């Protein structure tokens, strides 16, 4: 028997609330169509979603953890970039 493993896929589900697709986990599948089928079975059994995206994990380009300093720390001292100086009017959701 072949020891070859199927490629890994990342799964993104859009929930019923109409928010954006959110990463929910990963799975193995032989190809894209099967990945969608598997995602449906593994991640939407309890009505979690109305839309599925899958992308092969190998196609995701990630930031380098050792670069975390130069990438993210400069933002820490820029408090004025946060919209915390405004009052949020009542009734605004998802802020």
């Amino acid at each position, binding site marked *: 028997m*072949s020891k070859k493993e*199927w490629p890994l896929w990342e799964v993104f589900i859009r929930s019923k609330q109409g928010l954006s697709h959110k990463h929910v986990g990963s799975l*193995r599948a*032989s190809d894209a169509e*099967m990945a969608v*089928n*598997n995602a449906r*079975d*593994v991640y939407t*059994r309890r009505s979690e979603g109305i839309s599925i995206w899958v992308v092969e994990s190998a196609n995701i380009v990630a930031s380098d953890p050792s670069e975390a300093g130069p990438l993210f720390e400069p933002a820490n001292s820029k408090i004025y970039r946060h919209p915390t100086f405004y009052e949020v009017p009542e009734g605004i959701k998802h802020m």
Partner: protein
Amino acid sequence: MTKQEALFEFLLRKADDSLILGHRLSEWCGHGPILEEDIALTNISLDLIGQATELYKYAAKVEDKGRTEDDLAFLRIEREYKNVLLVEQTNGDFGKTIVRQFFFDHFEHLLYEGLMNSKDEQISAIATKTIKEIKYHLRHSSEWLIRLGDGTEESHNRVQTSVTDLSRFINELFYQDEVDEILIKEGIIPDVKEFRAEFDKNIGAILEEATLKLPEEKWQLSGGRKGVHSEHLGYLLAELQYMQRTYPGMEW
């Protein structure tokens, strides 16, 4: 045979098809070839057992002798089960399970599309709910058959053997007798003869894509609708009914 008796018999046949195949698929629980497929097969199993529950409930109501859906599912003897022989066949390897499912799903798809237009409101309501599940099952088994058939030499040979072995149960899916005649006349069920050509075309197209062939030999088996089963059903029922037989009336 009265219309009521025919309706009861029809509901029992379809409920038994769903229950027995659902039970067979549940045997995969914890044994699937990969985690994803283990979940897929047990999802389909639960869909089928859910369908059986609805059909048994309605059958019990039609019969009107005080039996419940649980009595019908758990407390009949082998000869009283009216499922087709295909669904009681053993799981075999994953490919055989897929082939069994593939033939069944394609038949169910056409049957339930017809049942959606049933003059019996309860049946058309059950069919409308069920058709969505069947369409997914159909997609699942068809996609797998294509990949196994047109996969490696090993997967192709194994799945071709199962296509050959299980093709002898296809004609029984289209079995008809007095029950069907009465219900067709009443507009309660479709005449399955009318979609045999479409069934052959649908499975033919996918088998071709999967580089698989139906055998030349047309030897066919039947008997399930009259309660005459293969040797496999008895063992299945022994497991299915064990709890109710051992602890009568138990609930959990």
